[in-house]
């Protein structure tokens, strides 16, 4: 132990004597360990940490699938069939988003919740901490039971955690609902803050796919068995109901549903990137330690001559590495802590389960683990090599030793590996940057500039369709007449909110030949006539609908260019008729074609969309769109005051800029690109430091040779050229290997790229150019220094 402390003191002295080396080594280690620890905390929190549900491995998410394999939500009758006929599940539940206005316990506010079937809580393995779950009677269609189970946060926030609330009624959406239970603080799913009975109706339309279905498998049931069982049930439903012939089911573990595959790809990609960064840091440090230890061979030889065993020598060198690594680990964990804070601040919205992302015991253990790996990579291996030095030769030369060919080759190989890894990261960052650029320059097809939006949900006071129509028509007319307002309209979904409404569409003249399955899927939007002008959607053909298209007149629709081209590729769409949903009943007549728009995902292909007059199909929840010339705040105040003027019982709607909403689509890719570009820059810096270190060491080893060559007539330019050539060879080799690696690996990130090929020539060429320029600059500096060495000094160099 005495020896250990002596070694530790000596190591500390050594590090303090070389502050430059110590600083570079510490920063390199801290950045490598910090970045890895921060990224691992994300992976651990989102993908490895257990879900907050007991025995979560048995939880699954279920979708229905179309004959073409597209995922769909589940219809109410189908859910009930799956629920009643399946045996592989301990419990099955369905749910759908609701957004209700809470009046009691503060200002009226619209709060997100879920309408859930009775077994919802047992599927998730939680019970209320006060009160009870829903009864079967409360979950029956037509049940008059107005009940609600509150989430812990909502209970605390609006009702001060009142324990006597259970059994009492509160006003929700203008109706009195009895609070039957309160859930615990650790329970939640998605953003829901309360739960009301779903009361799925077996008599409702099987084509209305609204519900998200979740289930808990029986203890010994497998996912495959359960999926096969539901598949058989789906086939049975298809036999009974021809419109659902060919439909099936798809199932995935809950954890995979909550943390999407695209996020997993991104997380693994970024974790791989930081692992590369750490590996590069280790390579740099190993090179630094090798170079430093080579210079200390005289000292080490003397220690051996004085009787130190080789083990003792290894320990001494290792203690230095451990000390350095310990300091780097401390700094790295501090950096990781700040990194996690930054991720929590900027990552909300695209990092799922963000609340689980933190530096906990597992993350600390990981950090210590990579610290140990780092010690082995940059400390132990050089220590073992140095301890094996030839004592006689070392002492004879007074510690002056040259670099053997095999040593040089190892160092060269390390630099090549570093450059290749930097190339991989640069190509990855370049691709993400290119993809982000493509995303930014993609036109959504509508003009979001100077438009604000507000989601307005009409309650039970607007039960009749005409009441909804009148409310929005009056509100829009009122707003449109105000100074500074160019136009106003309403549509059923907020662009890029994640919502989408799809249904089958079939041209009437092909209905017979196609059968019950439908020709294709199209998105549908019920929208007021003014919505087209407010969104700036250009009319291409025909006309737009207006209020002269009476609700009791012919059913009409305006469709997008893509829908027109797919439905009737060989003739004009205007005047054509098509079925919407099942191929029966009154068809819709196309009266106009507008240009395409993207309002769900910017990164996916343009989808076919149809617009239906709001006065033909009134909807309780609509998104009001207002185009004005003033500031968002002033338009927001106007909208809020006019809504309250029309109906003061409605909650004050939140108003936001549509342009900001469109920009938010790029937030996730921007964050991902920023992280990857940061890691790539770090890798570039490490590669530059690495090649500089190797070249500088090489020059110091070859100083005498440089002097000799100068004595023999080599001009300074010839000397720097000779040294630069070696660096250039390493750079070219590393870049080529990196390119090969990129060719193999970038395919894996294809899923997160938008309109960008895995080996996009511009991104790849730019990455290669930046890397080559940086590496050659790093080579040029020592080469230039070598060319300026005085030949007499060089010849005396030892």
């Amino acid at each position, binding site marked *: 132990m005495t020896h250990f402390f002596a070694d530790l003191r000596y190591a500390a002295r050594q590090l303090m004597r070389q502050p430059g080396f110590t600083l570079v080594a510490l920063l390199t280690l801290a950045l490598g360990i910090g970045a890895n620890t921060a990224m691992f905390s994300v992976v651990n929190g989102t993908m490895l940490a257990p879900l907050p549900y007991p025995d979560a491995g048995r939880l699954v998410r279920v979708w229905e699938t179309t004959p073409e394999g597209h995922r769909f939500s589940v219809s109410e009758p189908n859910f009930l069939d799956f629920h009643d006929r399946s045996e592989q599940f301990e419990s099955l539940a369905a749910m759908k988003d609701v957004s209700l206005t809470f009046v009691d316990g503060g200002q009226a506010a619209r709060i997100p919740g879920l309408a859930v079937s009775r077994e919802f809580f047992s599927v998730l393995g939680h019970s209320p901490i006060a009160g009870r779950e829903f009864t079967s009677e409360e979950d029956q269609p037509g049940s008059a039971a107005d009940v609600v189970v509150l989430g812990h946060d909502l209970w605390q926030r609006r009702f001060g955690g009142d324990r006597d609330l259970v059994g009492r009624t509160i006003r929700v959406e203008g109706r009195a609902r009895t609070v039957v239970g309160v859930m615990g603080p650790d329970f939640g799913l998605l953003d829901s803050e309360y739960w009301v009975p779903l009361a799925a109706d077996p008599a409702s339309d099987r084509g209305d796919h609204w519900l998200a279905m979740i289930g808990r498998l029986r203890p010994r049931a497998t996912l495959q068995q359960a999926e096969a069982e539901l598949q058989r049930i789906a086939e049975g439903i298809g036999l009974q109901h021809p419109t659902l012939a060919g439909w099936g089911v798809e199932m995935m573990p809950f954890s995979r549903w909550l943390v999407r595959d695209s996020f997993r790809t991104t997380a693994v990609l970024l974790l791989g990137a930081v692992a590369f960064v750490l590996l590069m840091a280790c390579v740099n440090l190993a090179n630094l330690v090798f170079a430093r230890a080579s210079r200390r061979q005289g000292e080490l030889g003397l220690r051996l001559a004085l009787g130190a065993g080789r083990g003792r020598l290894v320990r001494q060198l290792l203690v230095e590495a451990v000390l350095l690594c310990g300091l780097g680990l401390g700094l790295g964990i501090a950096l990781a802590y700040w990194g996690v804070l930054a991720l929590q601040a900027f990552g909300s919205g695209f990092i799922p389960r963000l609340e689980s992302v933190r530096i906990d015991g597992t993350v600390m253990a990981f950090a210590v683990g990579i610290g140990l790996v780092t010690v082995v990579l940059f400390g132990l291996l050089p220590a073992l090599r140095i301890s094996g030095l030839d004592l006689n030769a070392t002492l004879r030369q007074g510690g002056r030793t*040259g670099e053997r*060919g095999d040593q040089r080759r190892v160092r060269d190989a390390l630099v090549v590996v570093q450059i290749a890894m930097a190339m991989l990261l640069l190509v990855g960052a370049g691709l993400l940057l290119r993809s982000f650029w493509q995303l930014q320059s993609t036109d959504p097809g509508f003009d979001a500039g100077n438009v604000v939006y507000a989601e307005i949900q009409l309650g039970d006071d607007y039960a009749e369709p005409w009441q909804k129509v009148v409310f929005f028509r009056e509100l829009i007319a009122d707003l449109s007449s105000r100074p500074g307002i160019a136009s106003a309209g309403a549509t059923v979904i907020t662009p890029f909110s994640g919502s989408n409404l799809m249904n089958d569409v079939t041209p009437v003249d092909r209905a017979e030949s196609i059968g019950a399955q439908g020709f294709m899927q199209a998105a549908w939007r019920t929208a007021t006539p003014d919505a087209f002008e407010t969104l700036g959607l250009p009319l291409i053909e025909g006309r737009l609908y207006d209020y002269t298209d009476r609700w009791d007149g012919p059913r009409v629709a305006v469709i997008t260019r893509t829908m027109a081209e797919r439905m009737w590729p060989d003739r004009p769409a205007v005047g054509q008729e098509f079925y919407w949903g099942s191929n029966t009943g009154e068809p819709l007549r196309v009266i106009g074609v507008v240009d395409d728009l993207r309002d769900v995902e910017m990164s996916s292909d343009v989808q076919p969309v149809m617009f239906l007059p709001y006065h033909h199909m009134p909807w309780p929840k609509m998104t009001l769109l207002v185009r004005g010339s003033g500031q968002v705040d002033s338009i927001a105040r106007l909208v809020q005051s006019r809504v309250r003027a029309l109906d003061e019982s409605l909650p004050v709607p939140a108003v936001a800029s549509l342009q900001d909403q469109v920009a938010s689509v790029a937030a996730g890719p921007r964050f991902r690109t920023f992280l990857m570009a940061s890691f790539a820059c770090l890798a570039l810096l490490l590669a530059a430091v690495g090649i500089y270190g190797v070249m500088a060491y090489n020059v110091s080893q070859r100083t*005498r040779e440089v002097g*000799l*060559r100068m*004595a023999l*007539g080599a001009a300074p330019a010839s000397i720097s050229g000779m040294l630069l050539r070696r660096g250039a060879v390493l750079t070219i080799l590393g870049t080529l290997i990196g390119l090969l690696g990129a060719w193999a690996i970038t395919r894996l990130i294809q899923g997160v790229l938008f309109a960008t090929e895995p080996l996009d020539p511009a991104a790849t060429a730019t990455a290669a150019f930046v890397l080559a320029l940086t590496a050659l600059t790093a080579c040029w500096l020592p080469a230039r220094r070598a060319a300026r060495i005085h*030949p007499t000094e060089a010849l005396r160099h030892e």
Partner: protein
Amino acid sequence: MNDTQRPLIQLSEVTKVFLTDEVETHALGGVHLEVGEGEYVSISGPSGCGKSTLLSILGLLDTPTGGRYELNGTPVESLSAADRAHVRNREIGFIFQAFNLIGDLSVFENVELPLTYRDGIGKAERKQRVVEALERVGMAHRLRHYPAQLSGGQQQRVAVARALVGKPSILLADEPTGNLDSRNGEAVMALLDELHRGGATICMVTHDPRYAEFAERKIHLFDGRVVDEETLNRLRAEEEQRIEEQIASRKPAAADSAP
């Protein structure tokens, strides 16, 4: 140098001052020296007298602080680094005490090195000249070997071949036998003698009087100045006298302090 010999090297009032931490060290103090074509000159003197500095200036590895230096009739004391490299390559052949062969290069490649810094010499001619140079030193049979596979004497012969291959005007040898045993040392001296008899101009720094005898003219350096043999002996005697007096003056004090 006799009157018939064309002067190859002409130094007049050459000085060299090194500045280290504000301390001036006068390595050479006004050296006059002429070396004629075909002459064999040895430069000797005690350690620190400026032999190596003088050789560095003669070989254009260093520039004088003052004075003039003409090589082959051309002033060279204020050439640029690139021009000095050019002149070194064509006019001067170096033989070092430590051989200075590059370990990664074969014997052939080591000898070829000066020619690679010269434009206009094709591969075939380079090969021919390398082989010729190696034949002159008796090492043509080892051209594929590496320095580590040769004895010290053989390495120095290869170094001599490298100095010869560019057909320089003058060979500068810095303690060429310093790293060799007496047998190999004598062999190298015999080789230089043979080259001299073949017409080569040689300027050799040595501290060994036996090897200095091989030269036809001996130059002595003392405290950075060229002195004749008589002056050298006088200066040496004065130096020895001074040292003895210093030792004698310290003896009583040493005796007093003895236990």
